[in-house]
């Protein structure tokens, strides 16, 4: 609207209708490069995958796409591995993101404090996030290696038996969560720190004059004002964690016994190992639909929170 009214003041605009259409076509023109880019990297692959998901395209068909009338989708619905992976991925995303929000908030609050060396600390905290996922996944795999990793070396020195951390489903899952939390907590902390810094200090001071304890200040002032930032973190992180691939592939390759396999990994396996591109497209789109539902859920919850605040 601003854009349009801006052009209404121009001398060449002889009447409102003309200036309106002029402003509209110009704004479309200016948006065109971004829209074109989105179309190429987002809309086109999506359409292509949609098309592919209704075709058989594998080694059996000689890698030629043959329409199979939704057979991929029917297979998906009854594919135990897909739903198992969906649950595993959901569990992974839920637990990791939950932990990251709690730890990230604590870290952000700590980094927000005034004190010597604050700048250095902030940089140090960000390091895990700056590390390439593959490198850090290899690092964690080595740390939990049986029996040569540092943790098992420590256990052996203490006279305890070494543990197969990455060959037992329960501990492997924990290691994958640990690695993800270690890497992305700084990202969450950084976003929340920005949120904290947007809160004027005199609000905090007004609360102190009311006699509020640090806990009361956090609960009654800081957290309510951070809700938009927490929602943003949630959205970013849930979407990212649901699509987790590189960390899992390097750290566990989905094992042991598929217990840490994520949906993205399953889609990848279908395409690159089983060379079944048609079904892989269905898996990918199934995951995409799940993610859409989940994102909508996050948004609804956030809105509910804000509305609740408005009522009080």
């Amino acid at each position, binding site marked *: 609207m601003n854009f349009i009214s801006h052009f209404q003041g121009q001398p060449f605009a002889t009447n409102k209708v003309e200036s309106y259409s002029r402003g509209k076509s110009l704004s479309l023109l200016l948006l065109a490069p971004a829209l074109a880019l989105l179309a190429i990297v987002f809309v086109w692959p999506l359409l292509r995958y949609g098309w592919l998901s209704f075709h058989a395209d594998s080694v059996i068909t000689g890698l030629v796409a043959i329409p199979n009338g939704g057979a991929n989708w029917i297979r998906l619905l009854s594919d135990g591995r897909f739903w198992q992976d969906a649950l595993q991925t959901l569990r992974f995303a839920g637990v990791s993101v939950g932990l990251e929000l709690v730890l990230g908030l604590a870290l952000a609050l700590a980094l927000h404090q005034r004190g010597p060396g604050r700048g250095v600390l902030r940089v140090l905290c960000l390091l895990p996030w700056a590390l390439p996922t593959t490198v850090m996944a290899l690092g964690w795999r080595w740390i939990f290696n049986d029996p040569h990793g540092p943790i098992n070396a420590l256990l052996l020195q203490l006279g305890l038996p070494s543990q197969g951390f990455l060959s037992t489903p329960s501990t492997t899952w924990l290691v994958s969560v640990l690695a993800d939390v270690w890497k992305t907590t700084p990202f969450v902390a950084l976003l929340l720190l920005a949120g904290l810094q947007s809160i004027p200090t005199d609000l905090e001071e*007004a609360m102190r004059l009311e006699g509020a304890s640090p806990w009361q200040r956090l609960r009654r*002032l800081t957290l309510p004002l951070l809700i938009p930032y927490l929602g943003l973190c949630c959205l970013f992180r849930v979407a990212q964690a649901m699509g987790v691939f590189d960390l899992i592939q390097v750290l566990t390759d989905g094992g042991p016994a598929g217990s840490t396999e994520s949906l993205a990994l399953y889609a990848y396996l279908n395409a690159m190992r089983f060379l079944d591109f048609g079904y892989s497209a269905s898996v990918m789109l199934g995951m995409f639909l799940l993610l859409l539902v989940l994102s909508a859920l996050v948004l609804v919850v956030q809105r509910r929170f804000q509305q609740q605040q408005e009522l009080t």
Partner: protein
Amino acid sequence: MSSGGLQLENISRRLGARSLLHEISLEVPAGECLALLGPSGCGKTTTLRVVAGLDPVSSGRIWLQGRDITRLDPGRRQVGMVFQSYALYPHLSVEGNLELGLEIRRVTAAERHRRISTILELLQLVELRHRRPAQLSGGQRQRVALARALLRQPDIVLLDEPMSNLDAQLRDNLRPELRRLLCGGRHPVLYVTHDQQEAMGIADRIAVMSNGFIQQLGTARDLYDQPVNRFVAEFLGRPAINLLLPQQGHQLGLRPEHIRSVNTGGLEAKLTGREWLGNQQLLNLETKRGQLKMLTSADWTPPTELRVSWDQGRELWFEEQSGERVK
């Protein structure tokens, strides 16, 4: 110490090598409003924050209603403060802003309700009580901030430039209003401002500050007629006092309204400009002892060359070096 009011005893605040406040001593009895007046960086806001407990002191003592509060936590000082930004909680309604502090102090729901309705009524905020701060005008926000400060039945009310975010006309209307609400109560009031008109209009007494010192403390009239030094003389009064070129280590200060045109004697002056102020006019004059501003009746048409003198007894003499006033 005496029981009522606020006393500051030799308050100093240093930050590293910098001295923000230097041996500040003052006393504000209950019911009095004292304005801290000075240019930015003079220490007036620091004084306020020290009284609130938001900034620590390096030395000295603070007494409030007979209690030594020098080291007391801000939440236990019974201080009502209006911040320059008003510091209203953006996520809460007007009512929520008022209620939060009472909830923290564990006031019962019935009592909270009673006190909030009283203060909403007093400040004419009843209709606005469900609005958020973002939905209020500047003047309304100020009233909410004031309500919040008064609600906790404070032992002292502190105001930090509460008018600086309002437009000039609103300020003129609010000055008597603010004075009515604040002054003459059971608590003293400290009012920080850089606007002399505001200080004169609201406060009973004024402390003029610069560089962490109190330069002079007294009624507006005292400060205007009997400034202790050149700084105070220059800071108060608009248009500002004329300072003539120094002679033999002394400098003459003349207020524009004390300059008269004369037929003989006095100083030769040349008219270089006129500013029309409505009911009066301000003449810019050039003399051999420097530039002069002269306030006269608006309907007089001055000649381009004239002679001026001043009302006897109204001139102020200052030492050239120290700026101290010579009596």
